[in-house]
């Protein structure tokens, strides 16, 4: 399965172009200098459907109905269908933007409560996060139902530290008399938490700054390591994680893989059997650099 980080230029269906268009047509769409978002000097240019070459891959994950597609549209200028029904984002939508001189490809994943269950949507999301090895994972969470959204954040933190939490729908939370202490949450999760109301474009500049910071850092936090209270389980995880690391040196989240194997997770079992898991250890396929 090819992750979104593949280096090939697998451009989605190109938009209809004006006849005199040149080869540079993948550059930023004209008119973005007047985008409302570029006013703060943050220089967001939305690249729509045709991101072309990119420096960083951003994956957009989150529970269903948290506003992932709204965030996606705000960043790319696309009008990916926003609606409330199951499986709306069937596979994954891709788009692009430039910010601070770097080009980003952004992948909108299907909404999922978990990376551990087995449904087609959740498999797409998990495989993209695990095997696509995005430079940044933006987890969109619903501020009005934070408790329900945090398990997914925790699961993603166990896979990677390159995470930004987009605390969306703070406007709705405010209407319900809820305020979330984003700074406290940032400290507890060890990754940036950005309060926002994506449908009003509130918090988008802050989200972009956080994405750029995580994309550019060399020392992102390590994947979260949960130690299990049950000594028998802890021993089994440690033993199996050691063997996973032996078989696939450099796999960054061997403990997580070991836990999935103990659970009998068919997707992970297959990845171990056919060696796909080893791809996690090798550097991501060389990404074409812009300029």
């Amino acid at each position, binding site marked *: 399965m090819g992750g979104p980080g593949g280096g090939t230029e697998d451009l989605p269906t190109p938009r209809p172009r004006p006849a005199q268009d040149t080869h540079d047509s993948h550059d930023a769409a004209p008119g973005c200098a007047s985008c409302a978002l570029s006013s703060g000097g943050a220089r967001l240019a939305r690249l729509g459907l045709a991101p072309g070459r990119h420096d960083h891959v951003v994956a957009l994950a989150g529970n269903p109905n948290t506003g992932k597609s709204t965030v996606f549209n705000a960043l790319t200028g696309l009008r990916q269908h926003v609606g409330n029904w199951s499986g709306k984002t069937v596979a994954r939508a891709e788009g692009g933007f430039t910010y601070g001189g770097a080009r980003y490809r952004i992948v909108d994943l299907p909404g999922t409560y978990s990376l*551990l269950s087995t449904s087609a949507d959740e498999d797409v999301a998990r495989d993209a996060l695990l095997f696509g090895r995005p430079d940044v994972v933006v987890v969109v969470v619903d501020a*009005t139902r934070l408790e329900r959204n945090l398990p997914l954040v925790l699961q993603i933190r166990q896979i990677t530290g390159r995470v930004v939490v987009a605390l969306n729908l703070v406007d709705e939370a405010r209407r319900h008399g809820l305020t979330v202490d984003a700074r406290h949450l940032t400290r507890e999760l060890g990754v940036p938490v950005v309060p926002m109301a994506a449908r009003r474009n509130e918090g988008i500049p802050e989200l972009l700054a956080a994405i750029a910071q995580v994309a550019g850092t060399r020392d992102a936090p390590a994947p979260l390591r949960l130690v299990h209270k049950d000594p028998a389980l802890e021993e089994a995880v440690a033993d199996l994680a050691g063997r996973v690391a032996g078989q696939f040196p450099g796999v960054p989240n061997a403990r997580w893989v070991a836990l999935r194997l103990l659970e009998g997770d068919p997707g992970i079992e297959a990845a171990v059997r056919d060696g796909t898991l080893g791809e996690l250890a090798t550097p991501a396929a060389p990404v074409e650099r812009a300029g």
Partner: protein
Amino acid sequence: MTLDEMPRDRRGVVTALDTRGAERRRLMDLGLLPGVSISAELRSPLGDPTAYEVRGTLVVLRGHQARTVHVELEDR
């Protein structure tokens, strides 16, 4: 008591899930973890399925699933 036996006007706390594998995983992913507060909100005419309120959202369970969720009634 199990979740299917819980009276509608009461809240309970989940104490254990008596199921394994994918089914257990799914219930946990939907927020049914030990210690969480839950109430029966909407019952279909025959009581199966029933919608439960947990962590601010409704989760609909079939009778055989609800029977695997052990709860302790909260004080009124």
